[in-house]
C-alpha cells in the first residue's frame, strides 16, 4: 500500500510528471507514491524521471489501459 496516491488519469504529457513531482515534494524521503496514468508515453517518461532524479521506480503495472507506478522518494 502506497503512502500517497496520485490519480493522473486522462492527463497528457507532461502533466503526470509535473503532478508527481509536486506530490513527491511534499513527502518525506523513503515514502512511496502510487501514480495512475492513462498516458502511454508515461512508461518511458517515469523511467527517465526516476533515473534522473534518483527516486526509485519500485514497480509498474498496466491493466486495461491504466498504468500504475510505485515510486519511492529518495533520501
Amino acid at each position, binding site marked *: 500500500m502506497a503512502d500517497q496516491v496520485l490519480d493522473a488519469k*486522462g*492527463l*497528457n*504529457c*507532461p*502533466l503526470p*510528471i*509535473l503532478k*508527481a*513531482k509536486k506530490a513527491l515534494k511534499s513527502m518525506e524521503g523513503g515514502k512511496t507514491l502510487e501514480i495512475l496514468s492513462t*498516458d502511454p508515453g508515461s512508461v518511458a517518461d517515469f523511467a527517465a*524521471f526516476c533515473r*534522473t*532524479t534518483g527516486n526509485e521506480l519500485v514497480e509498474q503495472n498496466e491493466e486495461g489501459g491504466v498504468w500504475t507506478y510505485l515510486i519511492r522518494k529518495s533520501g
Partner: protein
Amino acid sequence: MSSTDMKPGVDPNTMSIIVTKGSLDWAYPPFILSTTAAAMGLDVTMFFTFYGLPLLMKDLSLQVTSLGNPAMKMPMMGMHMGMPNIVSAIPGVDAAASKMMKNLIKKKGVASIPELRDLAVEADVRMIACQMTLDLFEYSKDDMIEGIEIGGAATYIEVATQSHINLFI
C-alpha cells in the same frame, strides 16, 4: 553528450531556452520542456525574445494559423485535414482554427499554456524578457506577469555559458 565532454565548471543540471515564437502551437515546446526539466531537478532559464515575448503577457490570447503550415492537419471526421493557404487567409479562419485547437487540447487532457506557465513560475523557472523586443514592439513591463527579469543579449549569453543545455525554439 557523454559525461567526459561536459563543459568544465558547468553544473550538468542546468538548461536555458531561447523562446522566439508565440503562437498557440509553438508556445508548447518551451513551456513543456522548462516545466519538466524543473521537475527533474534542473535549474532552468527562459529568454523571451521577438514573437516569444508576448508569452509573458498577463493576458494571453494565443492563436494558431494554418497559413503556410502544410504540416498542420487536424483530426476531423476520421481523417486528417489540412487547409489550403487561400482558405487560411480568409478573416476568421485563424480564430476558428484556434478554437478548434483549444477544444482538442482540452479534450485530450493536454495542459493549457496559462496552466503550464503558472507551473513554470511555481517551479522557479527564471524568465527573462528581452529589453530590445519590449522597446521595438512598444510593450511595457507592466503588461507582463510578475517576477520576470529584463535583460539583453549579454544577459542571455552569460546564462548560456553557465548552462549545460541551451535550446533555441
